[in-house]
């Protein structure tokens, strides 16, 4: 009796987490949760097998792997770390914006649940499900550990860094989600902030060295700030022999202090934004600003006696709305948005080229190209995934589908806005390439391959995102799907090929193509170029040689392939639009 009463009072004393419970139950009841886990487990197994084979080579599996567990663990850790960095924002960025879009966030805030409790439960829901995925690697870690060559402290550091990154990115994503109005905005902004947070301080530190060539306060600040990236903070410690004592614990805590501190800061920001920005039913700030400017110009026109004509749709109404009433697709708005971006980009490139040494200028130029290409691709992916999902969310698709406009026409007209944004982004990418060429950082051939790659990659990723948006009933699902597909294409293909090469080819010559360049290598190069990352890296490393009788045989064939892929993806999207757009949201 007393024990029962104690149990009851204990249960009452325990804080309840209704939202967390709901989130976990929802995740657990979805079939795709288990499909994703199985796929990720298989990918990890493949990565482990490749790492094992690379390390083993032609050796004896019984003896030659002894003491090589450290390498295997490091590879596993790298895979998991990249996975967390890529998937955590995709999984978490929409958790609060979805509630905003459905109008249910205000209702949640009216419950006795505190705003901080809400933030915490939303965050924990995603962290716990990610932890469950990370635990898939435990059996492989134990196998690797059994081979020896790895101390417990390093293993602890691997796990600590993974958990820390997980928590930090979840907190960052929640803060961004609480700030943003739409899932598309949250998705893009989270990745951009992640890149700034992880790469920014390190780059600033390096730049400060390059500018000042000596130690200064600024350099120390950026060095300290670069500790916010857990991997950067612990980079020096992974190779060392460590011992598990109080010094080690204190050292770990001090090293990870910036990262640890960032977690409550992000959560507090999320707490602040979730209340202040709970009801953002108005249009986005860019659109409001641009419309204000339009109205001002119209008033000025009226004063000088000029009347502006009304812009009304004459034909292709869907395209008209996309091109005239959206902030990122109206020509006038695009110019207003991109002119400052172009100006800043040009100024930054000139400044860097003048002030930093040649080697650094090369690296920065390369980074500028990849940063613009990656952020442009990300933006197009987010917009593409939300192209049809947006109509579904605002429940306008059904109305549109009862008009004589066919689903294919709807898709084609909506995609016209993305083409315009693609054009603007492409101009920025080409600007960085031209600057590279003008400053003599890169030869014309490499510049040409880079430019051609940008021209075909942006539409390819856009159409993949559009297809995901057509097939997936919700915007968040579409975004997660497009991230998974892109990661498999970008990283999975080179990883698999390098693995296959190491297993079936002469792995000792893997990095020395220049020694021998026959038909097999040409074929292998073409396979490598089937991934955009593979193609661009080979281009940067001057690995293209004469193939199929052409100096640029491999990139020519690869880029032609991408062109065909682009056309196929576009045709597939149009075909799927006809079949999937009529998928009803609700039934009565």
């Amino acid at each position, binding site marked *: 009796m007393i024990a029962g009463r104690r149990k009851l009072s204990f249960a009452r004393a325990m804080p309840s987490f209704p939202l967390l419970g709901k989130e976990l139950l929802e995740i657990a009841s979805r079939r795709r949760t288990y499909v994703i886990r199985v796929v990720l487990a298989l990918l990890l197994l493949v990565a482990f097998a490749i790492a094992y084979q690379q390390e083993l080579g032609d050796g004896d599996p019984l003896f030659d792997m002894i003491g090589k567990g450290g390498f295997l663990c490091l590879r596993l850790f790298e895979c998991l770390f990249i996975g967390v960095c890529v998937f955590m924002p995709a999984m978490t960025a929409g958790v609060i914006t979805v509630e905003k879009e459905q109008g249910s966030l205000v209702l949640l805030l009216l419950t006795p649940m505190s705003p901080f409790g809400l933030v915490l439960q939303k965050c924990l829901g995603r962290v716990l499900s990610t932890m469950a995925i990370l635990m898939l690697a435990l059996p492989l870690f134990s196998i690797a550990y059994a081979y020896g060559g790895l101390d417990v402290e390093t293993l602890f550091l691997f796990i600590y860094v993974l958990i820390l990154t997980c928590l930090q990115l979840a907190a960052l994503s929640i803060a961004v989600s609480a700030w943003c109005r739409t899932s598309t905005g949250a998705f893009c902004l989270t990745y951009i902030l992640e890149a700034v947070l992880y790469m920014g301080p390190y780059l600033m530190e390096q730049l400060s060295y390059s500018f000042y060539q000596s130690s200064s306060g600024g350099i120390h600040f950026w060095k300290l700030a670069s500790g916010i990236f857990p991997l950067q903070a612990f980079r020096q410690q992974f190779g060392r022999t460590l011992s598990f004592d109080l010094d080690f614990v204190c050292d770990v805590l001090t090293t990870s202090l910036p990262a640890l501190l960032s977690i409550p800061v992000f959560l507090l920001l999320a707490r602040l934004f979730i209340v202040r920005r709970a009801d953002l*039913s108005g*249009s986005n700030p860019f*659109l409001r600003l641009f419309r204000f400017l339009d109205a001002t110009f119209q008033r000025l026109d009226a004063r000088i006696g000029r009347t502006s004509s*009304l812009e*009304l*749709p*004459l*034909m*292709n*109404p*869907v395209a*008209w*709305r996309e091109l005239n*009433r*959206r902030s990122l697709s109206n020509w006038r708005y695009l110019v207003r948005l991109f002119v400052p971006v172009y100006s800043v980009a040009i100024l930054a490139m000139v400044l860097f080229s003048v002030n930093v040494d040649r080697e650094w200028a090369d690296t920065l130029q390369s980074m500028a190209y990849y940063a613009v290409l990656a952020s442009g691709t990300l933006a197009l992916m987010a917009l593409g995934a939300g192209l049809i999902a947006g109509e579904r969310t*605002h*429940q*306008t*698709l*059904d*109305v*549109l*589908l*009862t*008009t*004589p*406009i*066919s689903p294919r026409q709807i898709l084609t007209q909506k995609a016209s806005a993305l083409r315009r944004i693609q054009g603007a982004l492409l101009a920025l990418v080409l600007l960085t390439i031209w600057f590279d060429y003008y400053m003599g950082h890169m030869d014309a051939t490499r510049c040409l391959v880079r430019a051609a790659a940008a021209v075909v990659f942006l539409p390819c990723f856009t159409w993949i995102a559009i297809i995901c948006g057509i097939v997936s009933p919700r915007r968040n699902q579409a975004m997660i799907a497009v991230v998974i597909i892109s990661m498999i294409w970008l990283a999975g293909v080179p990883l698999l090929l390098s693995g296959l090469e190491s297993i079936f080819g002469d792995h000792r010559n893997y990095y020395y193509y220049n020694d021998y360049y026959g038909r097999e290598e040409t074929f292998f190069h073409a396979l490598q170029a089937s991934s955009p990352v593979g193609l661009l890296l080979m281009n940067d490393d001057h690995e293209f040689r004469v193939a199929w009788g052409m100096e640029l045989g491999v990139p020519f064939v690869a880029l032609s392939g991408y062109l065909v892929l682009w056309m196929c993806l576009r045709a597939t999207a149009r075909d799927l639009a006809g079949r999937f757009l*009529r998928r*009803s949201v*609700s*039934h*009565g």
Partner: protein
Amino acid sequence: MSFVTISHLRVRYGKFEAVKDISFEIPKGELFGFIGPNGAGKSSTIKVLATLLKPSGGTVTIGGVDVVKNPAKIRRNIGYVPDFFGVYEDLTVREYLHFFAAAYEIERGKREGLIGDALALTDLGGKIDAPVDGLSRGMKQRLSLARVLLHDPELLLLDEPASGLDPRARIEMRELLKELQRLGKTIIISSHILHELAQLCTRIGIIEAGQMMAEGPLEEIFRRLNLMRVVHVQLVNPTDALIAAIRAMPGISGVEPQADRLAIQWREGELAVEDLHDAIHKLGGRIRMFQPEALDMETAFMKLTEGKTA
């Protein structure tokens, strides 16, 4: 001659069958009320008519054209208003209507005139340059109706058009629908608010769990169900003998004397309301007021659906 013909319609979502073999016909110019609880299959049936859903079985024709075989032709002849309106909040009323005028490929020269007419009919003329997101719910609903009138369709499909509207907006909506019926439109309107449809519709169909329970003109359904009706009668000479004589009449189930009138319950299947009036007069009753109560659709609905809701 029926304008809309639904024959053995079936709609399936995976393993769940939302509409189970329903058949009915709607003559041209009728205002057909589709009544049923939430999840009964009303919206699914309307979506099939709107070419948004492909039926799992059966045939559906509008004006003799099959909705599955020729959806493009059907779309030019129907106007669909979903329960959530489906309006673009980032446009003004003018832009919104021009958007759909372009979607329906209406000649450019005719657009301004048609939009003006539709706005006048829906009483939104003063809001032509107002942003859509600034309109009230009732106005958005009227804007949706203005949208579907632009291309002058013969059939209007309105899915729960009065949901979430205040009493004034509901009355305005009712009057607007009556006006549209006068203009010769065939209208299918779904709702679970029964008395609203009773005041509006010329025919009704009661659907429950995907099956049509009853269909036809309202009076016919009541007659078929042999439901009790009530008439309020004010007599100059309400003597006990007269009341007893009325009670004894065939088809009368009860007479309840109230402060200034008698509430007489009678079975319409056995005694027509005109005959009741004549019978009271013949019994010597001097009638000052004779007012039958509106048809009690709640009772009909509960009787047909046996009180079950989804």
